[in-house]
């Protein structure tokens, strides 16, 4: 059971190392920021798509594309964002490759289809007569949209939980566009890769547990909100 003892020792050393909290902090900042932007863009987009859906049934292709987007391969997204941001690429003049901004951009692309997709499906599943009823009550389009979002909030929170989970645990894209640079773009997932390649499996395992613990806290907060929104 020496692996277990090594693991416990690694866990204790880890949580007393300031560098780990910087790494965990960056993981949180990158994922949460990416999902915030995705939510701001994705909820209105999903809302509109969900409402149109009720009138037109010929949108199978669009929805199929959107649903494929929910499972975008992170390494492909990483490569495409790399090619966009490389200094000779179309967005090269911003010089943000190998910075947290590039990582946020990649994770936004990964999480946006999830937010749009789940929002669309939640809105579509609401009773068809709800928008008309709101309209007949004299609501302006703005009020109707807010009311629909409010009614759909439970599903929308699920969308955010799924997106956060995807972003926080993702490694392929941020490794390519962030470069896993120590004190700069190293996050929990890429730190685990580094520790494995240095032969430090107990440390890697301890980092994994830390990742899972933070993920649990984050998801618990969102779940509390989601369950409350149902009552």
């Amino acid at each position, binding site marked *: 059971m020496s692996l277990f003892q090594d693991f416990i020792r690694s866990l204790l050393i880890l949580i007393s190392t300031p560098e780990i909290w910087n790494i965990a902090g960056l993981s949180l*900042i990158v994922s949460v920021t990416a999902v915030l932007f995705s939510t701001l863009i994705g909820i209105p987009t999903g809302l509109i798509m969900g409402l149109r859906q009720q009138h037109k049934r010929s949108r199978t292709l669009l929805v199929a594309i959107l649903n494929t987007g929910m499972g975008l391969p992170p390494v492909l997204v990483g490569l495409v964002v790399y090619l966009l941001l490389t200094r*000779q690429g179309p967005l090269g003049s911003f010089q943000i490759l190998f*910075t947290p*901004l590039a990582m946020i951009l990649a994770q936004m692309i990964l999480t946006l289809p999830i937010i749009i997709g789940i929002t669309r499906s939640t809105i579509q599943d609401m009773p068809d007569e709800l928008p008309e009823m709101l309209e007949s009550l004299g609501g302006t389009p703005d009020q109707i949209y807010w009311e629909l979002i409010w009614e759909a909030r439970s599903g929308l929170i699920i969308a955010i939980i799924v997106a956060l989970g995807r972003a926080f645990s993702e490694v392929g894209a941020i490794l390519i566009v962030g470069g896993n640079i120590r004190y700069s773009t190293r996050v929990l997932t890429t730190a685990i890769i*580094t520790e*494995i*390649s*240095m*032969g430090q*499996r107990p440390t890697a395992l301890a980092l994994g547990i830390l990742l899972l613990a933070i993920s649990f806290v984050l998801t618990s907060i969102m779940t509390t909100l989601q369950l409350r929104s149902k009552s």
Partner: protein
Amino acid sequence: MIGILLISGISYGIYISTTHTSGNEVFLSTTTSVQNTGLLDYLITHFEQNHNLQVKYTAVGSGAAIQLARDGEVDAVLVHAPNLEFKLIADGFSDQRHTLWYNYFVIAGPASDPANITTTTTASEAFTHIYEAGRAGKATFYSRGDQSGTNIKEEMIWNQTGYTINPKAPWYYATGTGMAATLFTADNDPRGYCLTDVGTFTKLKAGSPPLQKEALFNHDDLLYNPYSYLIINASRTHTSLNTAGAITFLNYLTDPATTKLVSNYKVGNFTLFNPINSTEG
């Protein structure tokens, strides 16, 4: 509204704190072995104590590291792929190759040595034994398969054997992963052999849990493994690079006090990298 302001604030903060301020930061791309062994982090920590210059690097394997240099992303490279380095100079991306350290590649395999390579005298003969044992179903070979310095060295040795490798051969596996991952994959196979730099091998031998493989063959000049530092020409990449910073870091790396740190950087009593200092144009 508050949310949007908050987000703008956060992103602006991140932008400010992360934008390349080329005056006080050097960015390198490197082979994975200098990271996996911990040497580069050790040297950078020491460097930053005495210099007002930050050194950052991304460890990606020599082939990818040199591609980043060609893309104009990095100020310098620290790699071990001499042929790619000469090509980089020939293409005008760098003027000089500063060889800083060397060690050896070793052929790692199971202690039982089913291909019987410990009795051989050259790397080419050892690979021939692996090839023949492979065809007989007694051994397997794990290639990096990723155009890294190690992968290029494997191909060089296969060329010398006169055999052409069929990549679909049932005993030949191209992992397409880094040195450590390839070693762990080979380690899982009791018949598995692979070529590795001695630094990564020794580090993983002392890892937790330790690697089972043994270093079975290392005595051939062909297995010489030099690590070189090349500063990239901004005039060729047409990007803004911190050449002055790259030179400052080079001066530190070739400083006698630093080479002493390198020769004292050991796992057990084994020196992972031996300093030399030679410059070729």
